[in-house]
C-alpha cells in the first residue's frame, strides 16, 4: 500500500510541475484538461530532471525535499494566479465536434475497447515483469541505481555511454527517491504513462480534422504496432523520445493553425527535452528547424521581423536545454560525443544497397509495424488530399526528412555497423519508432472524412 502511495506522490509532483507550467504558458488561452495533463507529464518530468542536473552542479544531494518540492512550490503561486484568470477549460474528455453525428457508435466502442485493452496490457506487463533486457539494465536501470545511491550524477563519467542524455535515468532516480528503496518493477511505470499521454496528444490533434471514430482509429494505429507495444512495457528511452519528438511536431503544426506563441514555446521545450532524452533527439533539431522555416515562409500574414522573432522564440529554449547538459558534460570532463566519426568517401556508396534492403525489410517485411507502412504507401495516392491539407504536406515532409537523416547517418558514420550484419535490424526499428506515429497521423488524414471546416479549406 505504501508503494502505491509513494509511487502516486512520485508521479503527482512532476504532473503538478507540468500543469503549473502549462497554466503559466497558456495564460492567455484555454487548453482542455486531458491535453493539459498529457503535455504536463512530459514537461514536468523534463523540468524535474533538468533541476536534478542543476543540483549536481551546485553539489546538493538528491532528496525528495531538494528535488521535487522546491519547483512545485515556486510554480504554485504564478500558476494559481493564471488559473484564476483563464479557468481550466471544459471538463468533457471528448468534445462533441459538429461532424460527430453519433460520437459513441459501435465502431467507436470497439476502438475504445481495443485501445483500452492495450493500455491495460502495457501497464500490467510493465508493473509485473522486472527489468531484464540488456538496454533496460545497462543503459537506464544501472545508471539510475548508481545515481540513487550517490544522490547525484557525479559518477556519470565512469558509467557506460557517459555522453548519453539522462532524462529517463533521472526520472527513475526520482521515482526511487520517493519509494525509498530500489524496486525493479515499479520503476518501469514511467514508460506506459508516456504511451498513454502521447495517445491523448495524438487523439487531440486528429480531432481538429475529423470525427471521434477516425481520431480513435489513429490511436488504434499506434497500438497495432507490436514493436511500439513492446517498447511501452520496457525501460527503454525510445518511446519517451517518440513522445517528445512527435509532440514537438504536433505542437508546431498547431501553432501554425492557431497562431498562438504558447504552442511555439511549448514545442521548443519539447524539442529541447527530446535532446535530453536520447542522442538522436539532438539530430532531430534539423527537422524541427526546417519545418519551422517552411511554416514561416508559407505564412503571408507575418512581417519579416515577426518571422525572425518567432524563429528565435523557438530556437532559444530548445538550444538552451541542449547546451545546458552539453556544457555540464564539458565542465565535468565527461565524453561529449561518442561514435562521432564520419566519412564522406565515395566508397560509402557501396553501403547503399545494404541500407535500402535494411529499410525495406524493416518497414514492409517484418512484423514490427503490421502493414501500417504499406497502407501509408497506398494512401499517398490520394493526391488531392495532399494538395488540399497543408498539415498533410508538412507531415509528409517531416517523414521524408526523418528517413533522410537516418539514410545519411548510416551512409556516412560508423553506426552503419549496426545494420550491416544479419539480424541487426533491431537498431533500425528503434530509430523508426521515434517517428512512427507520423505514419499513423498521415493514414488518418489521407483517408478520413474531413470536418466541414477542413473540407472547404
Amino acid at each position, binding site marked *: 500500500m505504501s508503494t502505491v502511495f509513494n509511487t502516486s506522490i512520485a508521479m503527482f509532483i512532476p504532473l503538478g510541475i507540468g500543469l503549473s507550467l502549462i497554466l503559466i504558458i497558456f495564460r492567455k488561452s484555454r487548453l482542455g484538461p486531458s491535453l493539459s495533463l498529457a503535455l504536463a507529464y512530459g514537461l514536468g518530468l523534463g523540468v524535474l530532471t533538468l533541476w536534478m542536473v542543476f543540483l549536481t552542479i551546485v553539489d546538493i544531494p538528491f532528496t525528495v525535499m531538494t528535488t521535487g518540492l522546491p519547483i512545485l512550490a515556486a510554480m504554485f503561486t504564478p500558476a494559481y494566479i493564471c488559473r484564476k484568470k483563464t479557468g481550466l477549460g471544459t471538463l468533457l474528455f471528448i468534445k462533441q465536434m459538429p461532424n460527430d453525428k453519433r460520437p459513441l457508435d459501435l465502431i467507436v466502442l470497439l476502438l475504445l475497447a*481495443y485501445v483500452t485493452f492495450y493500455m491495460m496490457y502495457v501497464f500490467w506487463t510493465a508493473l509485473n515483469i522486472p527489468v531484464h533486457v540488456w538496454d533496460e539494465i545497462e543503459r537506464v536501470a544501472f545508471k539510475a541505481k548508481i545515481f540513487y*545511491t550517490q544522490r547525484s550524477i557525479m559518477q556519470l563519467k565512469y558509467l557506460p555511454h557517459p555522453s548519453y542524455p539522462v532524462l529517463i535515468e533521472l526520472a527513475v532516480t526520482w521515482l526511487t527517491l520517493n519509494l525509498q528503496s530500489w524496486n525493479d518493477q515499479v520503476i518501469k511505470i514511467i514508460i506506459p504513462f508516456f504511451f498513454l499521454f502521447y495517445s491523448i496528444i495524438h487523439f487531440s490533434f486528429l480531432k481538429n480534422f475529423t470525427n471521434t471514430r477516425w481520431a480513435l482509429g489513429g490511436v488504434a494505429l499506434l497500438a497495432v504496432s507490436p514493436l511500439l507495444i513492446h517498447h511501452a512495457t520496457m525501460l527503454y528511452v525510445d518511446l519517451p523520445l517518440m513522445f517528445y519528438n512527435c509532440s514537438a511536431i504536433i505542437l508546431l503544426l498547431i501553432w501554425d493553425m492557431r497562431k498562438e506563441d504558447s504552442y511555439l514555446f511549448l514545442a521548443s521545450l519539447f524539442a529541447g527535452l527530446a535532446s535530453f532524452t536520447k542522442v538522436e533527439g539532438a539530430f532531430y533539431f534539423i527537422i524541427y528547424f526546417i519545418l519551422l522555416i517552411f511554416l514561416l515562409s508559407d505564412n503571408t500574414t507575418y512581417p519579416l521581423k515577426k518571422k525572425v522573432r518567432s524563429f528565435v522564440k523557438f530556437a532559444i529554449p530548445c538550444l538552451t536545454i541542449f547546451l545546458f547538459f552539453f556544457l555540464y558534460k564539458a565542465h565535468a570532463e565527461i565524453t561529449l560525443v561518442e561514435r562521432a566519426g564520419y566519412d564522406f568517401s565515395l566508397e560509402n556508396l557501396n553501403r547503399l544497397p545494404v541500407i535500402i534492403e535494411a529499410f525495406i525489410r524493416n518497414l514492409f517485411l517484418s*512484423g514490427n509495424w503490421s502493414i501500417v507502412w504499406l497502407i501509408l504507401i497506398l494512401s499517398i495516392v490520394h493526391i488531392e488530399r495532399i494538395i488540399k491539407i497543408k498539415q498533410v504536406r508538412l507531415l509528409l515532409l517531416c517523414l521524408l526528412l526523418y528517413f533522410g537523416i537516418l539514410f545519411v547517418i548510416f551512409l556516412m558514420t560508423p553506426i552503419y555497423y549496426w545494420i550491416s550484419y544479419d539480424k541487426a535490424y533491431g537498431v533500425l526499428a528503434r530509430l523508426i519508432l521515434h517517428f512512427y506515429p507520423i505514419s499513423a497521423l498521415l493514414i488518418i488524414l489521407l483517408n478520413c472524412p474531413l470536418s466541414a471546416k477542413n473540407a472547404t479549406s
Partner: protein
Amino acid sequence: MSHLDRSKRNQNFFEVLCVISSILVFLIIFAIIKRISLKHVLTECLNAFYSYRHNLIFVDTFAGINVNLLILFLIITISFLLAPLRKGRKNEDFKPTPGLTASCFTALTILSILAFIQTVNFTRYLYSQSQAVRNKTTDEKKALIFGDSYTFARFCKKRLPGRHNALLITDIDLHTTTGANTHIALAYHLFPITIQYNPRQRLIMPDYVWDDPSASPIEALVVFQKKNPEASVPGNFNIIGRFGSENLLAVRK
C-alpha cells in the same frame, strides 16, 4: 441518419464482407492446393502475427513466402474485385479512382483482421505471463528470470553488505553476447558490490570505460561459474561464503 448515409454504410458493410469472403476463399484454395486441412491453415494464420519480446519481429513464411508479401498480393487481388463496386461512387474529397480507393479500403479491412488476430494472441500471452508470475514476489520473479545471476548476487550482498570493490573471476566468455548479458545482470544485482568492467563492450568500443580509476584496491573476489573455484582464491583472501559447487565469495584478509 439520412438515406445517403445509410446507403453508404450498407455498401461499406457489403465491401467488408467481400474482403473477408475473398480471404476465406483464398485460404480454402491454398488448403486444397497444399492438401492440408482448413483448420490447420487457420491455426497457422492465428499464430503468424505476434512476437512480443524482440526489437525485431520476424514474420512467418507461408509456403516459403513472407507473410507480408502474401498480404500485399491479397490486397491487390481483392482490390480488382472491389473496384467495379466502387465505380461511379462519388466522393467529395477526391476524384473517383475505384482501384486505388478499393486498395486502401481493402488494406484497412485486412489491417483490422490482423489487429484482431494480434489481440487474440496478446490476450493468450498476457494470460500465460500472469499464470507464470502469479503469487510470486519481485524476488521470486527475478530468480525465475535471471537464475544464479540474481540468487548468487543476493547471497553475496547478504554476506558482504555495503559498498565494496570486487573482482569477478569466471569461466564464462564475457566477450560473447550471452556472456556479456550474464555479466551485466550479475553486476547490476551485485551493486553496491562493484564489478563493472565489461569486456565485450570494450572490444566493440575501445574507449568504453566503466571503471572508476580512483577506486580503492580490490576488497573482494566474486567467483562465479568457475570450475574448482577454491583454486582461484589467493592466500591473502578468506572465503566467506559458498553458493553451489562453482560459486563463492572471498574477502581480503
